[in-house]
């Protein structure tokens, strides 16, 4: 930076030579402020989404850069929400970027007092084994009169009201095929 640039960038100089003699506005603006732009402008992209909290279904625009969510705000195009969000919807960025989010598998052995780490692949495999075992232990082919039951009451599931329709579809399909009947979600609560 040359001296000339430095001098010309000096707000006092701009006060003396520009339209802001009192140094309260244009002359006092910093270089950062002059170049400031909304981070939504520089995002890699924007995903059109829906708020994950209640069932009103407010439209959200999810701005992201470098595979990180940089802003979530209401979608003004939405006829439901007209771009508005409640405090929870407004907190969606904090929700998805929260440092408290658990991002690794945690495993608690029977009778253990602490968590331990577990590989995701191993965990899924262990769960599959346990499903097969539970079915074997608790399978009911038919009732006392010989009518088919085709089920296990040894496996339960709760959840779905916060999940996608596609997910609920696969969940129900798989559980039904494995004979697990006791599938429930918040709609019962």
């Amino acid at each position, binding site marked *: 930076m040359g001296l000339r640039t430095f001098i010309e960038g000096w707000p*006092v100089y701009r006060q003396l030579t520009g339209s802001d003699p*009192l*140094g*309260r506005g244009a002359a006092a603006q910093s270089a950062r402020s002059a170049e400031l732009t909304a981070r939504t402008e520089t995002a890699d992209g924007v995903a059109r989404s829906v708020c994950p909290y209640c069932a009103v279904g407010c439209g959200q625009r999810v701005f992201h850069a470098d595979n990180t969510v940089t802003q979530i705000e209401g979608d003004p195009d939405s006829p439901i929400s007209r771009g508005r969000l409640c405090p929870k919807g407004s907190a969606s960025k904090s929700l998805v970027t929260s440092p408290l989010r658990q991002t690794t598998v945690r495993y608690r052995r029977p009778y253990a007092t602490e968590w331990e780490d577990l590989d995701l692949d191993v965990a899924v495999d262990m769960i599959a084994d346990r499903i097969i075992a539970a079915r074997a232990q608790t399978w009911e082919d038919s009732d006392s009169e010989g009518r088919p039951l085709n089920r296990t009451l040894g496996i339960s599931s709760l959840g779905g009201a916060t999940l996608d329709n596609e997910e609920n579809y696969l969940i129900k399909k798989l559980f039904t095929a494995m004979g697990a009947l006791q599938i429930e979600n918040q709609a019962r609560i």
Partner: protein
Amino acid sequence: MTGAGGGPAPGRRGRGRRGGEDLAVPEAEFTSYYGRPILKPPVWKWDIAAYLFTGGLAAGSSLLAAGGQLTGRPALRRAGRATALAAVSASAAFLIRDLGRPERFHHMLRVAKPTSPMSVGTWILSAYGPAAGVAAVAEAAVWLPERGPFGLVRRVLPPVGRAAGLAAAATAPALATYTGVLLASTAVPSWHEAYPELPVIFAGSALAGGAGVGLIAAPCAQAGPARRMAVAGAALELVGSHRVETRLGLLSEPYRVGTAGRLLRAGRLLTAAGVVGGLLGRRSRAVSALSGAALLAASVATRFGIFHGGVASARDPKYTVVPQRQRLAERRAAA
């Protein structure tokens, strides 16, 4: 709105403007959101109050030094210059220390804003500080070797010091009084409404402080001007602080009670003691020095008193709401 500003109308509340301590204000009935302060009290810590003192002390000392320089009182000159440098250095330290981002102190020099007393003060300090510094350094000339490059410096320094000393003295009154505006130009009720008095008090306090330095440092023979400075300073200070404690109605209250009240009372006593001692003890070096110390202490007490009074007025929503309500009522009545 008149020049009296947003202050409550005289006579309306503070019954007996000159009634000394009898300024009881009827218990104000007011409302605020969960009783909480409406204003944010100053975040300035004690170091700003200390700066008020050291800034004034530097100013007073520079004036003392210049007087000594021009009237041939080297003791006053030396003491004044040295104190000025020490005080202004302390001032800078206090100011920077109080910043939330001390490493950015130089951002103060980005702009020159007449609307910002702190900006004005920065530029005053920028002019004053080097001058006071050079003047003080010039006193060291006598210790330099007489030959060589230092010899040149030894020869050049005294005239430079004289010029610098005069420059410092020229800016010193501004340094001493701008701090009055610094406090007054806020929303802090008891500071803002005291804007006519604060520069006066601070001028007086600075004079008294400078005089105190003189009384301590100078032999009795050279201390006459310091004594007179003390009298003048004390007069300004006492008149000013009396006025803020009485003229502002409800807003005088914070200066009379609590920490501020105690400090200001102590300041007044010390000032009186310093002046009396200075005048009566003119032949005693010890009494003079003690008087000088009393004046310095008085200056400290006054500055802290004014500081705390303002802070107290911002912490209690009463001082925000009641005068403003009053103002509104008067406007409505007038309309």
